[in-house]
């Protein structure tokens, strides 16, 4: 294949990104939530040695790229990776690879399973065409290690606590550990400020007598985060939705983006321009 026959756009959507070096490409993989099995790592190592220059690149979005793939080897790499269960990644104006922490599959603080949710979102939306790049990240709790605030659509696990008076000894531990100052314990009486609570669940997991219990578990959703040249943090627009509500809202958000974004506008800018309340009305 000669260089003028190369369809860079099709290569790009297929997860091959042109390098500055002549006829060299980086092969981006479709990694979900940073989950890669040992056998896949072996296949990656083999491909990097056979077709690349012997190294892989870890992207900022938990992804993996094999750089220095010659144009002639593009198809071979794709086939080898597919055999190992690793699919092509994406770039451009599409729904990008999903970031997720390990949540309650590993982390003591995790309140939900972001890995499972990431796989479901990936299956449904991966690489779908949108007006501009659209990044999704899922954090298992409000500690936000997966940085949902930096993404176009952020998801955060949360629990709403409930206080059981009859179980409480008034020890004051919950007041001490609450980072949001949402709990005051005075003379054995607990006052809970729901507005201040960030749904982290620390009071529940720490209470010695189980006087704090889960009232509701769900997902808090954020919209409009991005970094780039004009960074802004995503803002919270709804709390504690369940999984089916989440998918409904995500559908409507993508629809809203397609209908309202001007060319090359991230959804954060669309929401800034049209208004958060208008966005909320459209998707909730």
């Amino acid at each position, binding site marked *: 294949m000669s260089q003028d026959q190369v369809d860079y756009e099709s290569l790009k959507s297929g997860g091959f990104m042109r390098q500055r070096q002549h006829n060299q490409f980086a092969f981006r993989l479709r990694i979900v939530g940073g989950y890669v099995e040992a056998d896949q790592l072996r296949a990656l190592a083999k491909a990097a040695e056979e077709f690349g220059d012997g190294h892989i690149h870890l992207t900022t979005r938990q992804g993996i790229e094999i750089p220095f793939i010659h144009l002639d080897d593009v198809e071979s790499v794709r086939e080898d990776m597919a055999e190992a269960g690793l699919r092509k990644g994406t770039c451009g104006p599409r729904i990008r690879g999903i970031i997720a922490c390990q949540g309650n599959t590993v982390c003591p603080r995790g309140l939900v399973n972001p890995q499972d949710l990431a796989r479901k979102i990936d299956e449904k939306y991966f690489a779908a065409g949108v007006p501009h790049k659209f990044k999704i990240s899922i954090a298992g709790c409000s500690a936000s290690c997966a940085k949902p605030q930096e993404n176009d659509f952020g998801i955060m696990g949360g629990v709403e606590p409930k206080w059981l008076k009859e179980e409480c000894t008034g020890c004051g531990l919950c007041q001490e*550990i609450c980072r949001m100052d949402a709990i005051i314990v005075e003379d054995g009486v607990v006052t809970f400020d729901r507005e201040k609570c960030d749904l982290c669940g620390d009071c529940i*997991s720490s209470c010695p007598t189980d006087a704090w219990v889960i009232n509701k578990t769900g997902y808090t959703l954020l919209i409009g985060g991005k970094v780039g040249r004009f960074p802004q943090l995503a803002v919270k627009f709804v709390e504690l939705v369940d999984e089916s509500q989440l998918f409904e809202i995500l559908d409507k958000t993508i629809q809203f983006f397609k209908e309202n974004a001007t060319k090359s506008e991230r959804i954060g800018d669309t929401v800034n321009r049209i208004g958060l309340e208008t966005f909320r009305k459209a998707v909730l």
Partner: protein
Amino acid sequence: MNKDMAPSRSIDTCGEVCPMNMVRTKFELKDMLPGEILEVALEAGEPVRNVSRSVKEDGNRIIKLEKLGTHYRMLIQKGE
């Protein structure tokens, strides 16, 4: 103090960097018998948060928490 509440061991984790306060508490409890009480001195904030969570997850019970100026005194009863 009630005789039953008397700690059989005592550690001071003030000045320790997380997660060492939690790790030291865990190791101390590991060598104790069910029902025995461990007294732990802890700094406020993150140490109290981490230690209380881990103590509970391991099936032990915090039976008392006292604020003593800038630090806390926690009594933990080793679980079965």
